[in-house]
C-alpha cells in the first residue's frame, strides 16, 4: 500500500513538473516578445520596426525558423 502511494505521489509530482515546463516556454517567450517591443519603441524605432523585432525575439526564444 505504502509503495503504491509513493509511486502515485512520484507520478503526480513528475506530471506537474513536466506540464509546468511545457507551459513555461510560450509564457516566457511572450514576455520576451513584449519586452522587446517595449525596448524597441523606447529606442525610437517605429511601430513596424518594433513589431518585427519583437517577432524576431519570439522566434529566437521559441526556436522557430
Amino acid at each position, binding site marked *: 500500500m505504502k509503495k503504491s502511494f509513493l509511486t502515485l505521489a512520484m507520478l503526480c509530482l513528475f506530471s506537474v513538473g513536466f506540464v509546468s515546463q511545457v507551459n513555461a516556454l510560450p509564457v516566457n517567450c511572450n514576455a*520576451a*516578445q*513584449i*519586452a*522587446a*517591443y*517595449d*525596448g*524597441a*519603441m*523606447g*529606442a*525610437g*524605432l*517605429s*511601430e*513596424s*520596426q*518594433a*513589431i*518585427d*523585432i*519583437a517577432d*524576431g*525575439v519570439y522566434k*529566437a526564444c521559441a526556436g522557430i*525558423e
Partner: protein
Amino acid sequence: MKKILLLLSFSIAIYGYGQQNSVEVTYKVDLVETEVSEVLKDIYKIAYDNVKFIDFKLLGYAKESLFYREKLLTNDAEKGADIALTILGAKGKFFTNLENGLVYEDLPAFGEKFIVKHPVITNGWKLTKDSKSIGKYLCYKATTTYVVNNSKGRFEFPVIAWYAPEINLPFGPKNYSGLPGLILELHEKDRIFYADKISLGQLDEKQRKLIAPPKGKKPITQAEFDAIGAKIAKERFGGR
C-alpha cells in the same frame, strides 16, 4: 577648322551631360553599436554581424531614382540580413520623383505590402560650409532631422549628409534627396550609409526601366502607416 572645334565642343558637352544624367551607386552600411536593453542585445548582435553582407543600389536617371537593397546569395544570409534591414529602416524600395517632390517607399509590413509616401526634403536641409574629401570628390555637409513618432512619444535624431556638388544629381540613400549634389555618405541615427562604387552615365535600358513608381496600393502617409502599426501592436501586445 572652326567647324571641327565647334563640333568637338558640342560632342564633349553632350558626353558630359550624358555622364551627369544618370548614376549607379553601390552603398554599404555600418551599424554603430549603441546601448540597447538586455532583451534586444541578441537580436542586435545578429544585425551587427550581418549588416556587412548588405549592399544597396541607387539608380538615378534625370529626375527619378530608385534605392533598394540587393538580394544576397544564400537563404541563410537573407535571414540574418532581414533583422539588420528592419533596424536600418531599409526593408523597402524607395522611388524618388523630383518633379512631384515625393518619395514612395514600397514597404513589406504586417504580412502585406504598403506604399508610404514621404516629401523630398529640399527645404529641410541645412547646408554648411564644412567639407571633406570622399574618394576623389569634394563633399559638403548638410544636416537635417530624422523624426520617429510612436506610441512612446516623438524621437528626433540628427542626420548628416555629405554630398558632392560635382555629381549634379540630387539623390541619396532611402528617402534622402534634394541636395545640390549626390549624397556619398549619410549618417542617420546609428546607421552610416556610404558610397562604395559610383558609375556615371552607364545605366542600361533594363536598369532605367527599374526606376519606376511602385504599383498595387494607394500610397499613404507615414502618419497613416504608423497608425496602422499602433493599432496592430495594441491588438497584439495590449495598450502600452
